[in-house]
């Protein structure tokens, strides 16, 4: 039995952390955020050079052949660092494509996704749940509109949720119109994407059981991002509490604040094991994998918003400023909470899945 990270997993986390810090120093992040959010080729290339795009893809396509647990631990670090662009969606698109039967599509794209040469994203639509996906594909042409697609402006390839819960692969080009939406989270730009007869190849027919697995993976990865973000908010607050002085002492000496920080830690640290379990259950296809994914997304997204809020409070006035950029993480928490469906939606699903 092993239920804590291996040396290798910790090394991957370290490498990702270092790479992101180098490629995305605070000033660059602020510049991007102030510019309204954007794809960032430099950090993208650095992360992809490290092998992030292929972490959970087979070695035959240049991947590392690891599992969702490893990928989620990686995404966690990026959530902590506030990564820019559709990294999560890109990795997810790779996972999805790797599950598909279409050998040609896998052959053509997986290697390029692994290397990051092709930028991919996923577009689900409706109320996020597969049943509500609505883009139609007829005669190899896709039609419909999907709102709130992360990274669609930068992507070359979009995996599109189709009516009744299928998935189609669309290369950006003729018949695809991307309109940027000003998103609350400035690190992850959203777009509304219109498909008007865009050439599409169907990867999964509606109702294919693998769709549920792909959606579960999306939930796990989002909860990993949320966990990392919450961890960052906690770390920043603890550091600030040791440094900032009022009444002649570090504010971290005041028990009221100390207890608030302990409460934040209580929200973050135990949630880590819940995220791990959800990823592990996905990898090993446990019976409760779907439920664990729903619970992880619901619980951890809630924790993130709560911890980010507390972090702003713990910082006093500076926390509320645009300039200090804690709001970047608060905004990310709002994204993680709403993206793929709110905690309420997933808790209702979890209750259904329990057969209550």
């Amino acid at each position, binding site marked *: *039995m092993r239920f*804590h990270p291996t040396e290798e997993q910790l090394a991957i986390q370290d490498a990702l952390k270092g790479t992101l810090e180098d490629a995305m120093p605070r000033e660059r992040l602020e510049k991007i955020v102030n510019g309204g959010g954007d794809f960032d080729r430099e950090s993208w290339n650095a992360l992809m050079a490290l092998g992030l795009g292929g972490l959970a893809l087979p070695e035959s396509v240049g991947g590392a052949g690891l599992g969702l647990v490893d990928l989620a631990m990686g995404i966690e670090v990026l959530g902590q660092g506030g990564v820019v662009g559709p990294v999560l969606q890109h990795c997810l698109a790779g996972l999805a494509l790797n599950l598909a039967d279409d050998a040609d599509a896998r052959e053509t794209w997986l290697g390029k996704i692994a290397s990051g040469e092709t930028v991919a994203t996923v577009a689900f639509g409706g109320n996020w749940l597969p049943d509500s996906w609505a883009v139609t594909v007829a005669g190899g042409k896709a039609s419909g509109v999907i709102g709130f697609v992360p990274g669609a402006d930068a992507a070359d390839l979009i995996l599109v949720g189709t009516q009744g819960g299928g998935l189609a692969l669309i290369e950006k080009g003729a018949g695809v119109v991307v309109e940027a939406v000003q998103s609350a989270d400035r690190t992850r730009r959203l777009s509304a994407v219109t498909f008007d007869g865009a050439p599409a190849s169907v990867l999964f027919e509606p109702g294919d059981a693998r769709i549920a697995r792909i959606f579960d993976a999306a939930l796990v990865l989002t909860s990993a991002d949320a966990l990392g973000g919450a961890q960052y908010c906690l770390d920043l607050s*603890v550091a600030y509490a040791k440094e900032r002085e009022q009444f002649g002492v570090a504010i971290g000496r005041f028990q009221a604040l100390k207890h608030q920080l*302990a409460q934040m830690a209580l929200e973050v640290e135990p949630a*880590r094991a819940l995220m*791990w379990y959800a990823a592990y259950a996905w990898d090993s296809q446990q019976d409760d994998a779907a439920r664990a994914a729903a619970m992880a997304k619901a619980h951890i997204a809630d924790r993130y918003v709560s911890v980010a809020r507390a972090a702003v409070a713990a910082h006093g006035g500076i926390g509320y400023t645009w300039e200090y950029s804690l709001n970047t993480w608060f905004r990310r928490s709002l994204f993680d909470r709403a993206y793929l469906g709110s905690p309420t939606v997933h808790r209702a699903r979890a209750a259904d899945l329990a057969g*209550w």
Partner: protein
Amino acid sequence: MDLSYGEGAETFRREVRSFLKGAWQPGERRKDELKAFIRDFRTKATDAGYLYRAIPKQYGGSEQPADVVKAQVIREEFARARAPMEIGGNGMSMLVPTLLEKGTPEQKDMFIRQTMSGDMMWGQGYSEPATGSDLASVRTRAELVGDEWVINGQKIWTSQGDRATHMFGLFRTEPNASKHGGISYLMLDLNQPGVTRRPIRQMTGEAGFYEFFFDNARTPASWIVGERGDGWNVSRTTLKHERASIGSADALGGTFRKLVELAQEMEIDGQPAIKDAKVRDALTKIEGWVMAHRYSSFRLFSLAAAQEQPGLVGLMMKLLLTETGHEMALLAQELIGDHALIEPASAGTRGRGPEKWLDQIMGTLGNSIAGGTTNIQRNIIAERGLGLPRDLAMEADK
């Protein structure tokens, strides 16, 4: 990540199972016969290496190398067979580990075997009327007169004080030394003149804890664990032995399963409450915490098996348990509705109907106080876990 215990553990599991099949057949027995049977069973299970594993053979244990996975397999299989495990209580969980580390050979000989057999039952004598969170401020005096300690003062909130035959605790032996440096860890016999025990009725109606008054009570000079004045450090020894296990997570899981059953039994507008969207949301919200607790206990178990430190999350399990228990109690009250107005048939009996949840509702309050209050838990998380500076008052005290 891998939650299977591995081939070796499964082979071991088969051994435990076949042992239990042979040794644990309680059948129909009279009460006294059953008692003897259980005693005999524990001896056999110890000889087989399943019980009292951390205790050397010479003191009646099975002296097995530490192996948390095997220990967990034993817990699971004994639970499955409904076979009795080790005798529990303060003696086994706190005193014996302390004696093993700090006791003299004579003390080990004298106390461990009798604690294991249940002949000696121990109360933990830490708290006093003026001393709770500030444990180092104990005042109850023990003075060495000839070859005996003479004890005067009062201990309070002693759990299992009705059954306790003996007490271990902290006593002020060096009145002129510093607050932390003047305390010794002593054991004493509670059945002697000079000791008065009085039940304290707790809010559930049960007499769950007791107070003890000492009026020139006596204990041999040799019943001190560790050095004179080193009692504070000796008492800390015990804390190291508190081991997280999957078993502890089941406590919360068990209550949660009962809460789900309650939601299935109770009705809202003629429908099972569990069909109500708000109830489903509230249940799954709580379950998020239950799962975080359960998988964190797997994490602690895994770390312990790898002989690694538990870290931050290890400091949080009690608080998480208390807080989640409290949330469950609140939802239970919501679900039982007006039944929350009814005292169970007689106080402390837990009742039969929905009103039995009153005990759970009040019980969670006990958890938030016993063994270090919620405020103290938060101090520990913040100071030891997050590295925040110590409280001014506590620092002054050192």
